[in-house]
């Protein structure tokens, strides 16, 4: 794998630095689902253009990745060669059935794993610089080579991992946790060496997001067993999957969502035989709207809290000046003490704003993004249904045609019968796929709701702890100041 040392996060119009990866491998390892895609390619090529423009917005139009993606039809994305790590056996297929096996193997191992992302370090200079993070995994699970592993990863590595997981699992209905968003503005500030609070905040926000991302992914019983995830966590050298770094988490989801939009545009109404899905979908729509509103409110709270910190600091300064000009000794001392206390309070408010943000706001943001995944899998199910319908329609047509053919042209008849047999197989597969994705989604949503409760509970506890701690600190500060105030005579 060609490792380019001056790799930087791609900007529009800069596709040149990617190594020109050719066609995807389809030697002996053929994903059964992929087969069908190539056939449908012709039908859906035009659609493909629309679908991919957004997902690959950060890749130049001339980049080979786009061709790769386009040539494989809307979904799923065929992972380019670079994705399939060399040490993976080629017959490691990601079909529905193999996932089932994985789950049944659900180890009696308790989910005992903790992942920390820490020590952000700037590597390199100028626009070629990037942030490297330390990823520490501690676990007692036999899945891992050792109970502790420490590696260094950069943001694009995380995106690469997410890209692999998304393409592998999203299309069969698994809720793949979305990766943190790219931010060209934020990253540029860091690169040019701005060592101010806003770029530090940006790095910290990203670090925390990466940590939550890995933990959420590791908590997923199926994803945890993914070899790429294990490699990510354990291998000191990570092969660079340059091309998929172009796809951000949001990009992948947008792509999946766009597919759904395309379906809607064609006004296909799925005849839902299962009201459970309809209800759930509605609930998630509502939840999405509500969470977004809440997030807005919370943003406002965080903003005001930071403002309070700033204003407290300004007041502290004016109290100090008052103290300096004051003639009366005891009053002067008390005012100076007051200024010191207020400076400490300023920091407390800043910390509380941090809790507001990192606990509450990011929780909501994570869930808003997760709901994006949920919508994605719902839409994927609709698309599978659609494909099934298309196959059924085609089968019917072929059958009708065959009936008319009959005796006249024996070769054509044979061909027709062969076609029909093939189509019947396709229909069967489609029915299986649809059933499987429905089953998977049910399981995933059940797990999602359980995890949601755990997550929210954890945040509530941490938040209450932060509130209690702030008040206790305040009490300490004011109790120390009180005698000073009383000493004024």
């Amino acid at each position, binding site marked *: 794998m060609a490792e380019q040392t001056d790799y930087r996060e791609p900007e529009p119009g800069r596709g040149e630095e990617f190594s020109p990866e050719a066609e995807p491998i389809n030697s002996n390892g053929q994903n059964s689902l992929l087969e069908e895609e190539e056939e449908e390619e012709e039908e859906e090529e035009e659609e493909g253009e629309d679908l991919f423009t957004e997902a690959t917005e950060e890749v130049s139009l001339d980049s080979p990745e786009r061709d790769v993606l386009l040539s494989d039809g809307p979904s799923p994305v065929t992972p380019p060669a670079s994705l399939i790590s060399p040490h993976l056996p080629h017959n490691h297929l990601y079909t529905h059935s193999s996932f089932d096996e994985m789950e049944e193997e659900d180890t009696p191992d308790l989910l005992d794993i903790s992942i920390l992302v820490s020590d952000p370090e700037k590597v390199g200079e100028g626009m070629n610089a990037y942030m490297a993070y330390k990823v520490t995994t501690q676990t007692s699970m036999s899945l891992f080579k050792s109970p502790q592993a420490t590696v260094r990863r950069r943001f694009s590595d995380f995106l690469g991992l997410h890209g692999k997981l998304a393409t592998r699992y999203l299309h069969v209905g698994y809720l793949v946790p979305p990766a943190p968003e790219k931010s060209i503005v934020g990253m540029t500030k860091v690169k040019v060496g701005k060592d101010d609070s806003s770029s530090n905040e940006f790095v910290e926000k990203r670090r925390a997001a990466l940590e939550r991302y890995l933990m959420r992914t590791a908590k997923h019983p199926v994803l945890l067993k993914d070899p790429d995830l294990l490699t990510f966590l354990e291998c000191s050298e990570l092969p660079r999957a340059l091309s998929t770094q172009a796809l951000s988490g949001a990009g992948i989801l947008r792509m999946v969502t766009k597919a759904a939009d395309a379906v809607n545009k064609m006004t296909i109404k799925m005849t839902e035989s299962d009201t459970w899905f309809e209800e759930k979908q509605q609930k998630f729509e509502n939840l999405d709207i509500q969470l977004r509103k809440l997030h807005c409110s919370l943003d406002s709270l965080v903003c*005001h809290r930071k403002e309070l910190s700033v*204003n407290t600091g*300004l007041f502290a300064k*004016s*109290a100090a000046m*008052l103290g300096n000009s004051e003639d009366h000794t005891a009053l002067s001392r*008390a005012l100076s003490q*007051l200024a010191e206390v207020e400076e400490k309070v300023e920091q407390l408010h800043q910390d509380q704003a941090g809790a507001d943000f990192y606990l509450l706001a990011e929780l909501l943001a994570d869930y808003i993004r997760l709901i994006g995944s949920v919508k994605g899998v719902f839409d994927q199910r609709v698309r599978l249904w659609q494909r099934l319908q298309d196959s059924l329609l085609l089968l019917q047509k072929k059958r009708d045609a065959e009936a008319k053919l009959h005796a006249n042209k024996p070769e054509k008849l044979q061909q027709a019968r062969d076609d029909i047999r093939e189509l019947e197989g396709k229909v069967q597969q489609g029915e299986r796929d649809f059933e499987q994705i429905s089953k998977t989604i049910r399981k995933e949503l059940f797990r999602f709701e359980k995890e949601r409760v755990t997550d929210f509970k954890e945040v509530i506890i941490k938040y*209450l702890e932060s509130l209690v701690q702030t008040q206790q600190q305040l009490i300490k500060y004011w109790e120390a100041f009180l005698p000073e*105030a009383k000493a004024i005579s």
Partner: protein
Amino acid sequence: MMEEEEAEECPPLSPVSVVEGTEEEVTPPRALSVSPGTVRVTEAAQDGELLTFIIVSQKLSGTGEYHVDRTYEDFDWLQQHLFSLEDVPGIQGIIFPPLPARAQPNAPGKLVRQLGLLATGGTWTPYCRALEAYLQQVAGHSLLSRTQHLETFLTSPEPPGRQKVKRGLFNRLSQAVEGIRKDGHTEDVDDFFRTEREHNLSLTGLSRAAAERFLEVVQTEQKIAVACGHFAASLQLCVEAGDDPGQETFSKMCVKISEIMESMKKNVQKVAENDVTTLGLGLDLECRYQEAEKEMLFRRTCKLVELETASRNAERAKPLKKAAMDEIKKAAEKDFDQVSVVAKQEVARFQRARVAVLRQALVRWCELQILTATGSAEQWNQQLLAFRGPEPSS
């Protein structure tokens, strides 16, 4: 008025009540039939544009109390009459208790600009407290309390005078400074006053700045309260009647967060209230009083200029006019000396009083902060323990 169930009634901020017992001046028998420290502005009733204050004070004789209703016009009437008191030698040397600015009830936007810290909190309480302090300061002032106007103001069932006060005639103070350039004279003959003037100059600016910064803190606290309220309300909408247990538990989480937000809102509202009623009022009074001292010092300076002018004229006077000029000079000298005597007393009194006021403000503020924080810490700790449940044994 004071809705803090946890504190005993907070004594009003007034130099009189805190300095009681340390008054050094020998005071002639007062005309005032009211005990100065007992004057209270108990409420403000708003009727359209009209704001009426109820003022209650205890009779000196201990036989009962006076209840009167007054508007801002009445306060203004009182202040203008104080400025124009006759038979008070050296009146220019008095640091007049500063009357808070007029409030325009139906213009909430303007209110903060007019009143600053006194307008925060959404009630008239801070404003009433400031007006109350003003009355106590006047009533406690040895020279000013003797005026019949104050007696009328506090005791007469009829409002003293709702006519427009003719400022031109009554305000002898403004007459005194007519024609004198604002920053005319900087040299002072007396070291005491030289330092005091310098001091006052810096403190006036700094206390105003501190009051403004403090106001901004309070306003931000109020914004936080509003944001918490919004969040709590929005969260309630997430709560649905869920059929499945997964949904139900999640709804409970949302209700919990909403409760926490509500309690945060109450906490920060209480903090803002504490801020305003203690340090806020203290800083507001301090900066208005510094302004009042500045005005007094300026008047004295003007007297000094008058004296110096008169001296020069007397020196240069032709023999014919000399006697007359000398007389004028003598009168100016006497005037200036009287003003300086009164001024010195006033400054000493002021310095003691302001330290006492600030001390009380800081102490009270600190105590309330501790009280509020303790209450909130306890409440949240209880919630935390209840929510966390028993520690898992594994």
